[in-house]
């Protein structure tokens, strides 16, 4: 249904292992992330989806005892995101993230979106105004909030908050956007809006999305990876995985069978 032109690589995990202290959470992951495509990560609870996703912006660096092995190559500049020489802050500036529960800062709508820009030292009102507007438009929430930019963000509805968080991530023009179960806290209507948005966004950015909802993966993604017990079991075009997975474990998961 979707047409697949031959895609370019945006990132690539190579023999990637991850450890929480002693416990190995990810085992030898090899996986491409294609440019301007949506890649979905599915798998049972605890299989390591979030762990994998959060490696892309070095979120694990925030907590002690975590350890990476292997590489995550980032293109076109072909840096290894995990390399100790690469500053995690720099990585995070290039890789945006949207979380499971909308987590707007207790600030105004405007300041939420401007946050990333301010972090980057931008304080010019005009530039901020413009970028904030663009980001809010990009997140399809501009019309709803343009008259109340000075309201506190936590007063928005759940779905609006989540779109605001997306706008916040968009404002800084990330090259890769990570979504960790972005709709699990939302009702079906808000969920629909977010999925729409993801579809729009992939024209501009590469997206990696974790979801528990297989139908959602089927709906929004171009590629799907099935993970199980810390391993990547299957990676392929979404179209194929959902009608005809290759691996028995993927099949079992997708059809709702017991492991």
């Amino acid at each position, binding site marked *: 249904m979707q047409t697949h032109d031959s895609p370019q690589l945006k990132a690539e995990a190579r023999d990637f292992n991850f450890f929480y202290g002693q416990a190995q959470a990810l085992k030898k992951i090899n996986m491409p992330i294609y440019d301007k495509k949506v890649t979905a990560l599915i798998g049972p609870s605890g299989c390591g989806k979030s762990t994998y996703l959060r490696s892309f912006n070095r979120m694990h660096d*925030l907590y002690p005892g975590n350890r990476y092995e292997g590489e995550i190559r980032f293109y076109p500049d072909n840096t290894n995101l995990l390399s100790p020489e690469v500053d995690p802050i720099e990585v995070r*500036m290039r890789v945006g*993230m949207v979380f499971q529960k909308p*987590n707007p800062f207790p600030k105004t709508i405007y300041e939420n979106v401007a946050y990333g820009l301010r*972090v980057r030292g931008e304080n010019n009102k005009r530039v901020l105004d413009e970028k904030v507007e663009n980001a809010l438009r990009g997140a399809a929430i501009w019309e709803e909030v343009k008259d109340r930019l000075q309201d506190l963000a*936590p007063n928005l509805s759940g779905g609006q908050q989540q779109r605001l968080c997306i706008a916040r*991530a968009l404002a800084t023009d990330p090259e890769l956007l990570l979504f960790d179960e972005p709709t699990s806290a939302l009702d079906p209507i808000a969920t629909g809006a977010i999925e729409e948005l993801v579809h729009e966004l992939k024209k501009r950015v590469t997206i990696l999305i974790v979801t528990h909802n297989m139908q959602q993966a089927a709906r929004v993604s171009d590629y799907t990876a099935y993970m199980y017990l810390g391993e990547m079991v299957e990676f392929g075009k979404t179209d194929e995985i959902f009608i005809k997975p290759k691996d028995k474990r993927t099949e079992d998961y997708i059809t709702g069978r017991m492991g």
Partner: protein
Amino acid sequence: MNHTMSAKSASDLHQVSDRLAHNALRNVNERLIELVLFAAAAVSVLTTVGIVYVLVSESIHFFQNVSIVDFLTDNQWTPLFDDAHYGIMVLISGTLVSSGVALAVAIPMGTIIAIYLSEFANPKVREVAKPVLELLGGIPTIVFGYFALLIVTPLLQKIFPELPGFSLLSAGLVMGIMIVPYIASLSEDAMRAVPMSMREGSYAMGATKLYTAIHVVVPAAVSGLAASYILGISRAVGETMILAVAAGMQPNLTWNPMEPAATITSYIVQVALGDLPHGSIGYQTIFAAGLTLLLITLVFNIIGQWLRRRYREAY
């Protein structure tokens, strides 16, 4: 409870009446317990009523002898002297200055420590440092008083040679240190209660730790911070012994922390433990002063309450 209520037999009716009786008994019990609990809550109100009663009833005698205008406008406080003046502003100034100094130390220091412990320190440091720091709150204030007098003042005099041996500055500084754990500990609790997701949101934007702490964690914890500040202020305003020992007990209408001065509390404790015959006008001054202090703290608390309500649970 039996749920097969099919036939309207005699035994069913019996059950119904049993049930009603049971309900009635339960309701009586519940009301009784509520009453007891209410009584407990009322104790705090009664305490206040008691305090207000004690303070007001004695203050009334006081104000029969001293006009309120004098009380508020006179710039001398010598109620025990032959030439008695009752200008409470003298004590208020001491109280405000000493509290001000204390808070100028405790609020930034406490907040910084809280930020450091909750955002920067590794958990092991935090787990050890926090209870140890809390010990500061348990040190008898008299010990702090001597600490101010014997250690801090000489140190300060090295920096400010003209500093007298007793001063609001040195008492205030030490008082500030004493209050630090209240602010640091409660603020740290409040900051740690800020969901991790909030922080992750900021880090994910590429923010540094400090930027995250200042722009996200602190605003999110503002209600808890306010609570800790209020407690800190209360503690500063109500603190007695440090000032009695180190601030010089000199009724002195001054806004300069480098001078010695008396505060409301140090005045009260001095008189209450002194030689004055009870019932004398000098003795009654402590009640008028106490009442003033109560009103001051009331104002602080109302402001604090208002602030807290305004910022409550912003996240």
